[in-house]
């Protein structure tokens, strides 16, 4: 039987503490498990003492039991497939797929079942599952370093979320777990420990589908999400010295895609670059750039540019080599557009 564990912490609404993104996500999951006995966690190595490969689930199986926080057999299809079945039985599962590269194994369960059951059943089936996965390991090559969010943007029925900061990781993950639709929550391994900030200790949610202007600016909009947000912010500081004022728009969720905020920004700056770690070719930026051009054609001062990974499998990338867009490339592209 499920039992709601006694809450061991009592916090005021405003209390914050300094957390890494990994700890912030752990906090979101802890509160979700504490607040709703139907929340369960499934995934490889997520139970203690392992606590997940990024330690995001550390301590949770000890606190809530291995019935609610289950280290599962190594079967990605079954992780998602049983999460769907458990959702039909009234649960709210959070399933972990260790690396996004392994999503191909369970793609059918995500795209043919989780995403479509509400539609096919005329609303009778609700699949409130959250799928957590990781991207951003740059060193380990073609089967371990891909940013595949565009695969899922092609599939109506699921939501796609990719945070860039610790506080947003907590707020967005909490919203995913509470959401009645299947949500894909993409964590970046580089950000998991490098991002540290004050994060609310108690329940904290950020609505899905709302972009955030991370840096207001007048001259050019950088539309981005995930780790590339930090590339954009660093570049903005560099270019500020040259008198170029970048606006950085963090999409935060790719589905629902907050195009209204994108349009507001680009209508103001009249120039846009879409920046991400996914491949430029047919990447999320292709859709965003096309929409900007369709809706703001007469207002643009320059072509909309895209910067992403090259169209090749992820190479082995020892330190110093980057196949992802760099701050220098972004700065050069911004200067080019300012020249129109």
């Amino acid at each position, binding site marked *: *039987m499920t039992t709601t564990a006694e809450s061991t912490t009592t916090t005021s609404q405003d209390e914050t503490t300094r957390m890494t993104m990994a700890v912030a996500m752990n906090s979101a999951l802890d509160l979700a498990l504490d607040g709703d006995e139907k929340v*369960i966690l499934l995934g490889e190595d997520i139970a203690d003492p392992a606590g997940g490969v990024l330690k995001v689930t550390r301590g949770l199986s000890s606190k809530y039991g291995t019935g609610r926080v289950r280290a599962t057999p190594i*079967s990605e299809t079954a992780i*998602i*497939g049983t999460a769907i079945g458990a959702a039909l*039985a009234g649960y709210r599962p959070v399933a972990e797929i260790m690396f996004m590269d392994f999503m191909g194994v369970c793609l059918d369960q995500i795209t043919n079942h989780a995403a479509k059951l*509400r539609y*096919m059943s005329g609303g009778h089936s609700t699949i409130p599952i959250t799928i957590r996965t990781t991207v951003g390991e740059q060193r380990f090559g073609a089967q371990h370093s891909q940013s595949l969010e565009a695969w899922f943007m092609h599939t109506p029925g699921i939501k796609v979320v990719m945070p860039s900061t610790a506080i947003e990781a907590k707020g967005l993950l909490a919203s995913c777990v509470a959401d*009645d639709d299947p949500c894909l929550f993409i964590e970046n391994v580089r950000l998991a420990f490098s991002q540290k900030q004050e994060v609310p200790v108690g329940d904290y949610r950020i609505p899905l589908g709302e972009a955030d202007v991370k840096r207001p600016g007048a001259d050019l909009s950088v539309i981005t999400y995930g780790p590339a947000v930090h590339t954009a912010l660093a570049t903005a500081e560099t270019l500020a010295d040259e008198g170029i004022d970048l606006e950085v728009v963090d999409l935060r969720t790719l589905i629902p895609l907050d195009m209204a905020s994108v349009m507001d920004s680009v209508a103001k700056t009249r120039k846009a670059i879409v920046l991400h770690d996914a491949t430029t070719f047919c990447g999320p930026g292709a859709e965003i750039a096309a929409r900007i051009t369709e809706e703001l054609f007469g207002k643009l001062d320059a072509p909309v540019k895209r910067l992403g990974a090259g169209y090749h499998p992820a190479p082995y990338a020892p330190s110093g080599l980057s196949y992802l867009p760099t701050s220098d490339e972004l700065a050069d592209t911004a200067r080019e557009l300012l020249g129109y």
Partner: protein
Amino acid sequence: MSSPETWTHPEPGAVPAATAAQPTPEQVIAGLRATTEGGIELTQLLTPEGERVASPIFDGFVSDIGAEQLRGLYRDMVLVRRADREGNALQRQGQLGIWVPLLGQEAAQIGSGRALRPTDMAFPSYREHGVAWARGVDLKDIFGIFRCTDQGSWDFQGSRLHPYTIVIGNQVVNAVGYAMGQKFDGKVGNASHEDTAADSDEATITYFGDGATSQGDVHEGFVWSSVYDAPVVFFCQNNQWAISEPTERQSRLPLYQRARGYGFPGVRVDGNDVLACLAVTRWALHTCRNGNGPVLIEAFTYRMDAHTTSDDPTRYRLSEELEVWRLKDPIERVRAHLTRTEGADQEFFDAVDAEADEFAVELRDYCVNMPDPPPERIFSNVYAEPSPALDAQRDSYLSYLAGFESTAGEG
């Protein structure tokens, strides 16, 4: 005839096991494929001639089935077969986009479907019209799927029948997840004695075919159900053919024997024997409700018609095989038994036939008059909450359609 032992452990110098598993022409004509049918492996309670066979293990699970109950099972099978033939005919007349015949599998589906409690959950593939009937789903809803007006929008929580799954084998892991939920909810193993099951105890059954046993999803479902003690019955209808591929293309071993490798019981039942299917499925569900699941049941049956109306089995299988299986018809053996035991008279059989004809007319009338779904349904139930992107698409499409109405009005 080769035995399982020789398939897995060929004699020195013998042909490899997979080759040995291929049937001889004599086996084909005798209706036997890579897996032998007869002997002690097969649980049978009614012979094709309608004689009752005693089973010390399973008789106790159908001790309540007298003539009246058998007449009920007979009626189920006749009505479902009549609906199936009507579906086939309606497709041929262009009234349905496709039909997936269940002909020959009525006993497997009615026997297992009638073994379920209302609180049990069923996950079908796409041929389980008999299971849908047993679950109380209106077969008109099933016809809607094949007339392409609906995708399975019956109330699955009420009927406890999940929508049809088209992708092969995928529903098996969903069923395991559901069963894990039942167990975690405490709806398993509440009886004070293992001979009984508590009213609150539940189990899940999932249906798939011999072809699906080659899918990774099915194997992952076997693994997960076994390591989590999930109360799930894997009901494999081995109808001998996966479209054009015979069972020996899927397995060296009789399929039910695979269960042993995963650590749970596997049983082969005569899939054309409704009484045996009922008994074995009741036993399996009981085992699951008591916390001793999972169980694999291989219902040894035969697909008497094509894979779908798009398929022509005469291109790849022998008509002699069909003739042999015709002699094992699931409905005829119950009819023979009821006649032999004076459990029913001609008046009963005539009444069931008349009811079946009326049922067919009802289905046909409904089918040809089935309204098209409203166009806004294209954009409905994609997400739980309204989506601006979908709303915009819907408004645009409805406005486009409205343009035709105003043109027609002007014309």
